[in-house]
């Protein structure tokens, strides 16, 4: 018993050192190794423990191997037959028992965290409930308590539990925000998954689809935007505002209505099952999840440019997506640019 305790004590500083080392890896808004919320934190804790145990195991194996290879290398004049050892009951028991102990050391916290992660907050009155629906290749977020639906940008208030209900409209996807929580698959109706996470700090976190879902699987990204409670309430209020702003030019407005709104929804229109809602698209972090909106051009392009890129040829941005090419729907280049300008200006305050 004493031995295990000592081993555990020795692991502690190593775990701490590892934590520091691994924390240097990757972007804060993306890396598993730089968790930004309690759920990701608990996975990370297990990871650090398991990595520490595994490094100890590796060190033991490597050093015995190195010793054996150097010490027992056959010398030139060596010809006598080495003693044919059958085995050693004591040694074999030793290396059965030690791994068993290590497994137990890892298994206990694992089981604890498994059950803690099963706590899904779907009955929590205080939690924000979000229905996530995966589509080839975009994400739909429905806030059931507020009656609003958005796409690609998941806006959440800091510190609150977000209770997710995950499903898919087509093939399997997997909902993953590495710096906030592990992933969870979206299955078709009938096997709906629930889980929850929270983000204590404000920030924008990168989310990904982790289950192969077709050609543009790698491009099925989204953003989680964690904002203050007040900003969240404002956002909800502006999402709920009934009037939907239309393009100023009446001809363009007509085109937009007849061509775009046959699939997409804006403002108070009921959410469309086939295409992302466009409400407030001008305020989003990205176009199509992967064209990052960035006026400084450091990590993307201005939203107007991104919208034009997308609208002029959606297939070249996201191969295999379901949006028809606006040109094939009879829109001229000027009309496409006009709609892009209108959408870029369609922001929520």
């Amino acid at each position: 018993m004493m031995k295990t305790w000592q081993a555990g004590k020795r692991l502690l500083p190593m775990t701490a050192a590892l934590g520091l080392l691994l924390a240097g890896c990757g972007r804060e808004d993306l890396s598993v190794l730089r968790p930004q919320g309690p759920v990701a934190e608990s996975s990370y804790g297990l990871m650090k423990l398991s990595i520490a145990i595994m490094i100890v195991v590796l060190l033991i194996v490597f050093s015995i191997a190195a010793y054996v290879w150097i010490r027992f290398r056959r010398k030139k004049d060596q010809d006598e037959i080495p003693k044919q050892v059958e085995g050693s009951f004591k040694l074999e028991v030793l290396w059965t028992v030690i791994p068993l102990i290590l497994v137990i050391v890892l298994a206990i916290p694992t089981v604890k965290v498994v059950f803690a992660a099963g706590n899904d907050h779907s009955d929590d009155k205080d939690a924000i409930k979000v229905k996530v629906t995966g589509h080839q290749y975009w994400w739909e977020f429905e806030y059931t308590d507020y009656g609003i639906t958005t796409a690609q940008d998941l806006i959440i208030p800091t510190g609150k539990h977000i209770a997710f209900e995950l499903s898919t409209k087509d093939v399997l996807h997997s909902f993953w925000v590495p710096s906030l929580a592990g992933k969870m698959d979206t299955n078709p109706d009938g096997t709906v998954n629930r889980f929850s996470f929270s983000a204590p700090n404000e920030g924008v976190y990168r989310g990904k689809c982790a289950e192969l879902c077709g050609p543009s699987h790698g491009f099925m990204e989204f953003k989680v935007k964690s904002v203050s409670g007040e900003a969240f309430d404002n956002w909800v209020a502006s999402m709920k505002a009934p009037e939907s702003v239309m393009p100023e030019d009446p001809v363009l407005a007509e085109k937009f209505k007849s061509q775009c709104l046959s699939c997409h929804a804006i403002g108070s229109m009921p959410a469309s099952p086939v295409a992302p809602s466009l409400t407030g698209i001008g305020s989003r972090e990205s176009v199509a999840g992967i064209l990052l909106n960035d006026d400084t051009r450091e990590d993307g392009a201005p939203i107007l440019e991104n919208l034009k890129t997308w609208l002029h040829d959606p297939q070249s941005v996201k191969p295999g997506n379901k949006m028809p090419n606006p040109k094939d729907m009879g829109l001229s280049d000027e009309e496409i640019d006009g709609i892009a300008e209108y959408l870029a200006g369609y922001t929520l305050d």
Partner: protein
Amino acid sequence: MDWITTVDHKKIAILYLWAGGLFFGIGGIEAILIRIQLIKPMNTFLDAQTFNELITMHGTTMIFLGVMPVIFALMNAVIPLQIGARDVAFPFLNSLGFWTFLFGGLLLNLSWVMGGAPDAGWTAYTPLSGKGYSPSHGVDFYTIGLQIAGLGTLIGGINFLATIITMRAPGMSFMRMPMFAWATFITSAIILFAFPAVTVGLVLLTFDRILDANFFNVDGGGNPVLWQHIFWIFGHPEVYILILPAFGIISEVIPTFSRKRLFGYSSMVFATILIAFLGFMVWAHHMFTTGLGPVANALFSVSTMLIAVPTGIKIFNWLFTMWGGQVRFTTPNLFAAGFIPTFTMGGVTGVMLASAPADFQFHDTYFVVAHFHYVIVGGLVLGLFAGLHYWWPKMFGRMLSESLGKWTFWTFIIGFHLTFFVQHFLGLMGMQRRVFTYLPNQQFDTLNLVSTVGAFLMGVGMIIFLVNVFLTSRRPADAPEDPWEDGRTLEWTIPSPPPEYNFKQTPLVRGLDAFWKEKMAGHKAMTPAEPIGPIHMPSATILPFLMSVGIFIAGLGFMFSRDEFSSSMMSFLFNNYIVTALGLLITFGSMLMRSLFDDHGWHIEPEELEGGEQR
């Protein structure tokens, strides 16, 4: 012609080796293409669809058509020799197993030229692999090709079970069997229990796709998660079908080149059986994020971690086999030495993956890609290289070049670690697997570049190996019976390559490492267990080949039975199942021939045997 009709296990081993090598090469080229595409962010070398076809075919080809046949090649070449048998239990079936594997593999790879390769991942998760989301024939090639190839594996597995149970030389009790024979025995048992699961799964998926059934279709009351269970109930044991033979090889190579018997033989046997047993209990650890709930996740977490215990026993037993020995670093032993730390690294990441809440992060990322390549390439492929270099003289009568072998080892293993070690970090930094490209500025760029450079280095290692094989094949076949001088088991008691009948007289086994025991007693050869007499040999036959051709044609016919063809002749032939029927007719006709015409084989008379000895 001789090669098409042969039923000799040694020739079938060579057939398996060439066919496996061919598919391994195809899978390797696919891997290189994948790595070129990922060398930099937003690369346009390949398009998304082609990339998905390549990853699907790379995984499928490597698992089913690349490494499995090479394993079967070594088993076929060595097992009858190691247990002192003259052939496998059912030579005819052995040949049938090879030909169904080959034609299944050919069918699968035909997809490249016949309208699109499968693109739903090697796991073919529904509904992506269903007709609705994968309308080309790609996945049909997958289901039907693997079905035919799987038939061969199952036949092979049953054959080895029967061989090892019934054909051991007198005196060779189970606990005196070489470790590679044990590994083959257990592997075959896993095949026997695991392959029916994938057979059923593939049939259901074929029905869904071709006959509009609803097993996995939600609208028709099916359940896509069912596919995942069926697939992994096969798929997890498959991992052990791959790795246990490598364990067996390492357990042969290390004692030979340490001049010591295997440390803790009985615990090795016990560990092998335990690994096989636990391997069947842990399939759902591939599905932690599917939403099975905390109870299932906890159970599968703990049972998965337990596999570390018997695996750990093996690692330490190998290390202590060398302890106190005289270790010689020949090429086979170099690969065995590389295997131990590399495989251990794959093993420990496996334990990390077993922790479900941590796996929520690891799953479907490059961390997993790194893990299973450490196990399959760092474990199995290094093991196979060790085995190939070790038994090459026995199979072909020629020693591979030691210096080229060492070059192969160093380029391959350095390239391997460069490729896959950094992928652990890519996964942890948020890169999901199976992405055809990635956005810049995510700190993925450098590590992906390193990984691609490593992949090229592995390719160089493979080319050096091929050069070695080519140069060796041009040298005279002059390998002695016991080319490594410290051979411990029965295969080293007979000429290299062995005569058709293997053993002129079945040897009498007096203990573990039978040959070593005789050497230590001062004998030069085994004591025979029987007088010299006529040896019964099975006749060569083309029927297995024809049967496989028939299944191949039937598969193609079934697959295209609902297509519309521009030529009315083709439509007539396919849509009326005429092609299918023709294929089945060939197969069943050959079976009928086999049943109706008794072939008693032939005998090699003692006089010929004496002549053979002076060769």
